[in-house]
Every structure is written in C-alpha cells, then in structure tokens.
C-alpha cells in the first residue's frame, strides 16, 4: 500500500516568533558622585525581546520587535533604582523584495538605522560582551532637549555625575551619544549587487537622537551606506548621515531666527568585519560634528572601537573590545554668532575639549550552556584623559535564553 498525499515541507513557514530573555547583574562605580552619596552601585536587570517575522506574500514580509526591561537597584543608589521600561514597538516595518536587479529591497516603517554596523548585532546573543561600544553608548555633553547658550554650558557638564543608567540611553536620552540605538521611522532601499551592498534611507530623526512617531521635532533626514565584501569574511563599509538632532520640545527656547533644522549632526562612519575559522574581528569608527548656531565652531568628535573574539571550544569564547572617543577643543575664534549673546569668559574654554576624551577596555568570557542558553561575564575599564579618573569600572554578568515563541504557543 502506498500513500501519495505529501505533507509539504515548510508550507507553514508564514510566521516566526523568537523570544530573547536575559537577566543581568552589574556592579559599577559612579563617576563624580557627590561626597555624601555612594560611589558604586549594584543592579539587577532583566529584559525580554520579542522578535517576529510574517510572510504576507512571497515577496512581502512584515517584521516586529518589542522590548520590555526592568532595572532593580540592590544597593548604592539613593533613591534605589526601580525602573520598568516598555517599548511596545521598537521595530515594525514591511519589507518588499521585488525581483529586480541588484537585489533591490524596500522597507517602510520603524526600523534600525542603516548607519554603522553594531546595531545589527546588538542582541545579547550576538554581542560577545555585555557592554556596548562607547560610540553607541557614551553620553556626551551634547544635550538633546536643551539649547546650549555657549561653550561654557558644555564645559559645565563635563564633570556631571554619570551613572551606568545614563550609558543605556534608549530613545530620547538627555545626553546624546555619537550614535544611538536608533530605530527611526521612514523608508529605506537596500540591496547587494555581487560583492557590494548599499542602503539609503529617509527617516524622521538623527542617528544620535532617535524620536518616536508622535514626538515633536521630527525632521526628514537621510542616512546612507555601502560596503564591499572583498573576500568572504572580510568586508569594509561606510555610512553617512546628516540631519537635525534636537528634540522638538526645545522649539520654544530656540534662539531667535533659528529653527530645529539649524541644529544638525553630520556623520561619516567606517566599519570592518573579518572572520576566519574561530576568530572574528570587528572595527568601527565615526567622525561626526554637531552644529549649534550659537557656537560658531562645529563641535566635532571622533571615536572608534576594535573588537576581537575567539571561540576556544564549542562552548567557550572570549572577547575584548577597545574603545576611544576624542572631542574637539574650543578654538580661539570660537565666538557666538553676532546676533546672539556672547559667552562671558572666553579664556576659560579656549583649548578645552567640549567633553573629556575617554577610552575603555572591556574583556569577557562567554559560555554556551546549550544551544539556547548562554552565560557571559565581562569587566569594563573606563578612563578619561585630562580629567579626573571617573572610577566607573564595571563588572557584569548575564544569562540569556533564546527560544522559539511560535512553537511554544503552537502558532501555526
């Protein structure tokens, strides 16, 4: 006897739901803490990420990412940290892949910025360490919701207390990093002809200050990039972006005659990935500057990181990441525009960087307990040059679990 009706393979692949749960522990110093407050703190944090993909037609797909996280201070901080943050739609977009040359693909919705490389592997199972590169996380003295009235404003905040929380900005942080974990809303086109790849997007917010839909201050700006895979495993790429960076809430406080479009960020980035056998290397650099009409000099910053990972056995890997950021110094001719009030004490800022140069070394160990369960631990050393030792070294440990939600829920 023979049965002929086939059970089609993968016929049900219309939906994919993946969950990532991680539990973290960190103990770190608080730089420039007031004498009466603790100079260290211990935190527990947990995060759940839900990723979804949906096939609508053979060339039309939908993608979704939602996040919820909780942070619980165990000691050190006063008041004790107890914060839950939910991002129902971190990403949500439609992807259309018509059968066109150059593998042309279109995306529309809320998606990860195409600038840089790290965003594509910022999930805990892809990041071999626990911390993130400084260029993505170090909060500079450039504010998101305040219009600096001159160089001294920025200098005033060079020694502001920084807590580890301020390094994990998410959207709308008060102090802008050079690049944020930006999930702007817009449209993007990308593809990969032969060994090259390209991407170009028109989005609603800058790479340093991503704004959600509905937030005031959204301005159209462009982000582009491309790369060349020289040989498999070795790729070099570049990214470009320009657009306004201030949040819309500063609108009423803008200097007369200026608009949000006068406060712009320009950035050019370079990235490199190399992998062979059990060795992986990643490097990324950025040159960026912020234009503030009431400071005649564009405030430039450059930063980079180099990350190396080696897998010693099927279960054990180690990684190390070296970061540096350099900030422009105020020049002698840095004066406010003619129609704006001039700073009172010019001598105090000439030759001083608008933030402290910083370097950081993070090294860590990862253990794959099972295919879905991984443990990581890392130690991060942070140092500034020309300033006081921030003493914000951090020890962290993380346990993460990746699971198939659609199987769990029996979604067919």
């Amino acid at each position, binding site marked *: *006897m*023979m*049965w*002929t009706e*086939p*059970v*089609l*393979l*993968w*016929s*049900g*692949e*219309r*939906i*994919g*739901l*993946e969950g990532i749960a991680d539990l973290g522990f960190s103990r770190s110093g608080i730089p420039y803490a007031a004498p009466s407050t603790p100079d260290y703190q211990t935190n527990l944090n947990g995060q759940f990420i839900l*990723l*979804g*993909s*949906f*096939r609508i037609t053979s060339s039309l797909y939908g*993608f979704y*990412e939602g996040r919820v996280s909780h942070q619980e201070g165990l000691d050190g901080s006063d008041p004790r940290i107890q914060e839950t943050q939910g991002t129902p739609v971190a*990403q949500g977009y439609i992807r259309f892949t018509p059968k066109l040359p150059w*593998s042309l*693909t279109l995306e529309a919705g809320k*998606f*990860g910025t*195409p600038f840089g490389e790290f*965003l*594509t592997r910022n999930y805990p*199972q892809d990041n071999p360490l626990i911390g993130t590169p400084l260029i993505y996380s170090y909060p500079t003295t450039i504010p998101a919701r305040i219009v600096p009235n001159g160089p001294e404003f920025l200098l005033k905040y060079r020694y502001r207390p920084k807590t580890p929380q301020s390094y994990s900005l998410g959207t709308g942080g008060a102090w802008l990093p050079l690049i944020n974990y930006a999930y702007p809303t817009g449209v*993007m086109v*990308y593809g*990969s002809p032969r*060994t090259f*790849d390209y991407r170009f997007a028109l989005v609603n917010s800058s790479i340093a200050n991503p704004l959600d839909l509905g937030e005031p201050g959204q301005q159209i700006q462009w982000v582009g990039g491309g*790369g060349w*895979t020289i040989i*498999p*495993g070795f*790729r070099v*790429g570049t990214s470009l972006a320009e657009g306004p960076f201030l949040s819309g809430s500063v609108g009423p406080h803008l200097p007369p005659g200026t608009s949000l479009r006068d406060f712009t960020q320009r950035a050019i980035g370079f990235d490199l*990935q190399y992998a*062979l*056998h*059990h060795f992986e290397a990643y490097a990324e650099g950025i040159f960026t500057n912020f234009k503030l009409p009431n400071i005649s000099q564009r405030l430039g910053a450059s930063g980079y990181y180099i990350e190396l990972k080696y*897998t010693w056995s*099927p*279960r054990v890997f180690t990684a190390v990441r070296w970061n540096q950021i350099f900030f422009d110094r105020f020049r002698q001719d840095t004066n406010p525009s003619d129609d704006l009030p001039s700073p009172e004490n010019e001598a105090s800022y000439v030759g001083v960087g608008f933030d402290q140069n910083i370097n950081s070394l993070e090294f860590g160990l990862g253990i*794959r307990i*099972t*295919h879905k369960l991984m443990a990581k631990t890392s130690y991060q050393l942070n140092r500034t040059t020309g300033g006081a030792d921030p003493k914000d070294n951090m020890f962290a440990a993380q346990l993460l679990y*990746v699971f*198939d939600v*659609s*199987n769990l829920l*029996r979604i*067919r």
Partner: protein
Amino acid sequence: MKVQTDGRWRKASLSTPLAILNLCLACACLGEVVSSSFSAELQPGSPSGVRAKSNTALLVASEIHGSVRIQSRIQPKSMAISMYSRRSGRSTGAPIPSPVNEVENVVLYLEGNTHHGVSSFVESQDINTPLAEAPVSARGQPRPSIRQINETFWPHVLPITTGTIVEFPNGDPFFHNVFSLSSAKSFDLGRYPQGQIRWVRFDKPGIVKVFCHIHSHMSAVILVFDHHFFTVPDSKGEFVLGPVPPGSYTLVGWHERLKPVRQRVTVDAHEPLAVNLVL
C-alpha cells in the same frame, strides 16, 4: 571484546540480533575473518542460529519493506527572522533542494531484542573494530555530507552509523559556522567560505542537533546509530530496510517534530516483511 557504555568499558553483550548483525556487516565490509573466540561469544545469544563466523549469516536475513505516512499535523518550522539588511554578500538564489514532503525527514530504524532494556542509541561501539572509515572507504562510496546551501542544511536529517565521518561543504557565497552542543557530539567548525569542506567524525550513538552560529534559523539533525538497521523513506514514503536477521524487533518511525511510533515486527528467514507505519 569491550564496548563502551555510558563512558565505562565493559564486556560486550552480544545477545541482541542487532549487535550480532552489526558486527557481521562490519566484518564483512572489512573483509576480515572473525576469530573463533569472537564467534564463540556470539553463538549462545544468536537468534535463529545465526552465526557471525560466516557471511552466510547475511543470506538468511530478510528485508523489511513498506511505507510510512504522516497523519499527524506537524508543527511548521519557524520562519527565519532577519531584522537587518544583509551586509555581506547575498544568497546564491539557487533553488533550495528541498524534499517534496516531510516524509523524507522520517528515519526508520530497528530497536533490538531488549533483553537488557537497551535501545539502539545505547552505546555499544566495538573499539577494536574501526567502523569509522572502513565501511565508507571499503565500499568506495563518498562520505555522507550535509551541505549548506541558501542558508539551509541539506539534507535536514541524516542517519549514520557510529564512526562515520560527515562532511559539511559550504555552498553559499558567504560564511557559515556549523556547530553542535549535543551530548552525543559537540563541535564547532568555525567560519569557512564557499567551496571549503569541514568534516566531523561521530563516534557516539545519539541524536546530534546541528546549527549555524551566523544563521540561527539553520538546523539539521544527525542520528548516529550503533547498527546498520535504519533507512529513510523516499518521497512517496516507501522504504526498504535490511537485510535483517530473523528475530523480533521494534520498528521505530522517527520524525524530529513528532512522537516516535513503534511497532513490533518479527522477521523470518527468506520471508520479506511488509510494514506500514503511520506517524
């Protein structure tokens, strides 16, 4: 003769027909003459008077043939989640050599006379009989392989015997990183480009789940048996298993995402056995 069981070496138990014929096949393939002490051990436990001393043992064996059908609803595989634009070359665009249906991912195998409660995944590899490469090289057949093509492992399910070397050629124009953390075999082949082949030798019976570090949606399953009595049905569900020495066995129909189906079968000499399995 010694065998390894749960990491300990002990005297071999050769009372099951599977163990006996497994050794017969191995020896036949190697073209070796079985020693008198070896055959003396076999005789008491040999069903139906099968003697491993001579290759004629194979002549009295019969085949099990029939068909298998999947009636249960199979949980579909999850769709790949690729949130970000690809930045390292593109897929080949070549058609994925997918099987016609899930029945090709079914593995049929025999569990032996369980005098000792052993299943076919219990370790009983003969360390003095290097089954590893001998059956492959002696027969001049290519090594079994699991290709990586269009971000898919092909075949998805591969049954092998202990000691088999499996190749993992990369057919995609970008890196893959094949690995497994299964207790039966853990390995990490590292990243390697198109055209390169890495291989792994499987010495321990069990189920080995294979993944790719770079493409988390890729998976494959290798079933490592300590005997030769297994087969994979064709696209119509038809299969032939054997030759099998006379005796009573349990025929198991295994699918990755279904509960295994077991059926008792009795194989007579010179009498092919027809079996239909429904999963």
